[in-house]
């Protein structure tokens, strides 16, 4: 009862925040901008956003309490958890179903809204008054769903003695962190969108806007990126098909806004530096927000089948309406303010950083468009012909691999090309050393993997990595000479003085390493064997000795655990323990995969079947090359992203009034 009451209260505060924030302002005809004439009303609206967070957090706390206390009088608790569910999975069962996941969306959005409204920041101030109504409006939408058709606090007439428990596929440490990160990324796109709306209404689309929006775009960019990688890790370790990315519609729905916001983070630099691409930047932020909502619509409408989707529900149409308001409103505002968004300078030479960023943007958006078409094609073909035409992974891999290679080449050249105008001769000269390093990387990959395709991919990725590292070394040497510093001091100073640029370079190196890992999937091999305890079988140069099969029961499942010794000749170098479990409440088997990870390849073993009488077991064996580098590159890329966002924060970014002239002179 109190949970629903708090949701209702949150709705009331969200409505108040939006209205109060608008009423606090008046339009000044002289400056043609909105100014806050009733600051006390705006402060009250800000506090209302904090109150929304308190109410949603309270409602969420009540649901968590019900889950942990096994209060099966709640329908959602009975569906998502059971008495034997371990605490971590009880915690994550909060978002294992439609109702809880929507409440989590509302909770994350309320955190964004509260932080945005309450944390005072000089640069952000002019945008707050118009951003609050947008954030409050979005919050209102999600809360209305949780309060109305998708109520997580529905009670059962007959209380069961135990719950059904979490779906076995969701029994993974990844489940604890992957969905919240993904949601943080997807819902976070609404904040840059709110800033766009505010900037357009208030005619503040200059450097100040781009600077504030960039920070709020970096947060969902990083969160969504981490969410996607964690999703890949979860698929790899839990789903048992040997891969980490299946071009599933819901994976694609999360990838599209990430591609678009990545494009924005690059084009924002062009606007900041040269005053161009304003229209494009507004469009990209709006598109990213719409695609994020579209992702939620796909997951929750039941239109497409996927391992991620919830059951068919009545809220698909509401998401569609929300998406339409977002898209039509965003485009209408853009058209309304078009005259204010003209570029300030010529775009410059085709051999320039800004030209590279523009092409990179077109390619990123093109990639997102291809993913979109490939994802919704089944819906389109069903409407036209009555039959769904599915485009599987081969289509996406074939079309997007060359696009990925183009992006890597653009990033490599873009690192070298200067702003404004470069010469082909200078660029070519500066590419010689990285090209030789990349060639060495390609040779090493060929020697290890014996595949020309992998060597080719390694060359392109190596070129990006080498170009970036060589540029960092060159800049360190230059700074060392200019400021008469030691090389370590010059290098660390370089990163500290411009964390955005050099944090971005670290992201590029991480991406290059990830791509080398992706290339390994070309050399993937797999087989299936049947074996009994005591027998040996050989796969990918390793002899597997099937030592024993352990069979036992735990409260919610019956476990079959196979123990496999790994041998090179007579040398034992490891043990793998794949499991096949039968979850009684779900009446379905589920494999716990055993993986031995090394930098060259993973041995990946799935126990696919067991004959209870003879103990004959079916094993699916995969050798997945270079997967280690995917995770290593991801860690590096996210470290770079975090540094770009938070690095150098201790330094005073905006000195007081008398200092700028002196600083400018000093430079």
């Amino acid at each position, binding site marked *: *009862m*109190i949970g629903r*009451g*708090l949701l209702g*209260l949150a709705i009331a*505060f969200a409505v*108040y925040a939006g209205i109060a924030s608008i009423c606090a302002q008046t339009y000044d005809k002289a400056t043609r901008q909105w*100014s*806050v*004439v*009733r*600051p*006390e*009303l705006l*402060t*009250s609206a800000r*506090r*209302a956003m*904090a*109150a929304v967070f*308190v*109410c949603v957090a*309270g409602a969420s706390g009540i649901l968590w309490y019900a889950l942990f206390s096994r209060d099966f009088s709640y329908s959602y608790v009975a569906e998502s958890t059971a008495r034997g569910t371990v605490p971590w999975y009880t915690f994550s069962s909060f978002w294992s179903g439609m109702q809880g996941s929507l409440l989590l969306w509302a909770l994350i959005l309320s955190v964004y809204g509260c932080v945005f409204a309450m944390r005072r920041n*000089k*640069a952000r*101030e*002019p945008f707050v008054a118009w951003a609050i109504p947008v954030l409050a409006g979005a919050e209102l939408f999600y809360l209305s769903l949780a309060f109305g058709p998708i109520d997580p606090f529905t009670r059962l007439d007959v209380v069961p003695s135990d719950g059904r428990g979490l779906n076995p596929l969701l029994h993974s440490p990844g489940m604890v962190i992957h969905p919240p990160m993904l949601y943080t990324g997807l819902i976070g796109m609404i904040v840059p969108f709110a800033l766009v709306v505010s900037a357009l209404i208030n005619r503040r689309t*200059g*450097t*100040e806007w781009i*600077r504030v929006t960039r920070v709020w775009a970096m947060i969902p960019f990083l969160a969504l990126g981490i969410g996607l990688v964690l999703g890949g890790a979860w698929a790899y370790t839990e789903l048992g098909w040997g891969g980490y990315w299946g071009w599933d519609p819901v994976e694609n729905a999360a990838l599209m806004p990430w591609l678009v916001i990545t494009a924005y983070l690059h084009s924002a630099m062009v606007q*900041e*530096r040269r005053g161009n691409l304003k229209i494009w930047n507004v469009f990209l932020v709006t598109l990213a927000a719409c695609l994020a909502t579209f992702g939620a619509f796909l997951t929750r409408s039941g239109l497409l089948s996927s391992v991620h989707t919830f059951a068919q529900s009545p809220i698909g149409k509401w998401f569609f309406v929300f998406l339409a308001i977002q898209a039509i409103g965003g485009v209408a505002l853009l058209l309304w303010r078009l005259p204010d968004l003209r570029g300030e300078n010529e775009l410059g030479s085709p051999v320039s950083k800004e030209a590279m960023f523009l092409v990179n943007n077109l390619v990123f958006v093109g990639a997102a468009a291809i993913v979109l078409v490939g994802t919704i094609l089944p819906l389109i073909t069903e409407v036209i012909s009555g039959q769904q035409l599915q485009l599987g992974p081969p289509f996406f891999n074939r079309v997007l691999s060359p696009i990925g290679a183009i992006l890597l080449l653009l990033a490599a050249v873009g690192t*070298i090309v*200067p*702003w*404004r*105008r*470069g*010469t082909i001769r*200078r660029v070519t000269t500066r590419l010689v050393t990285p090209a030789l390093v990349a060639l060495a990387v390609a040779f090493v990959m060929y020697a290890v993997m014996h595949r020309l395709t992998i060597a080719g991919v390694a060359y392109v990725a190596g070129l990006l990595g080498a170009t970036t590292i060589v*540029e960092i070394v*060159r*800049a360190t*040497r*230059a*700074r060392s*000479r*200019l400021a008469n510093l030691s090389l370590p001091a010059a290098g660390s100073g*370089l990163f500290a*003085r*411009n964390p955005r640029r050099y944090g971005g370079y670290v992201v590029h190196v991480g991406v290059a390493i990830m791509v080398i890992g992706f290339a390994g999937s070309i050399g993937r091999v797999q087989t299936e064997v049947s074996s009994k305890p005591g027998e040996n079988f050989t796969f990918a140069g390793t002899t597997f000795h099937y030592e024993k099969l352990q069979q036992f029961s735990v409260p919610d499942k019956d476990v079959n655990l196979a123990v496999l010794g790994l041998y090179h000749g007579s040398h034992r170098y490891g043990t793998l323990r794949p499991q096949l479990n039968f979850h009684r409440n779900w009446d379905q088997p589920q494999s716990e995969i055993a993986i031995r990870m090394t930098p060259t390849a993973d041995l990946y073993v799935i126990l696919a079947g067991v004959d209870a009488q003879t103990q004959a077991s079916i094993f699916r064996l995969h050798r997945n090359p270079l997967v280690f580098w995917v995770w290593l590159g991801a860690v590096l890329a996210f470290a770079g992203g975090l540094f770009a966002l938070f690095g150098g924060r201790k330094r005073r*970014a*905006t000195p007081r*009034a008398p200092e*700028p*002239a002196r*600083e*400018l002179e000093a*430079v």
Partner: protein
Amino acid sequence: MDVVVFCVVLLALAAFVARPLYERTNPSRATDHREAVAERDVVVRALRDLEIDRASGAVDEATYEAERALLEDRGTRAVRELDD
């Protein structure tokens, strides 16, 4: 019990939200220099980068001069606006 807790939360939050309405606040009359500050920071960072790019051989002399002049002009405008 639920009703009591709910009423306490409602009253506490309503007081928290309504309190600013009973405090006297005047609209800020300070000159809005935020755009100029943002411009100045961008120019300072861009000039630093340009010096490094020149010293490392990434830009030729003509591009360096042209870009520096453009940035200095932009920086001067921002600083003038801050000084006003």
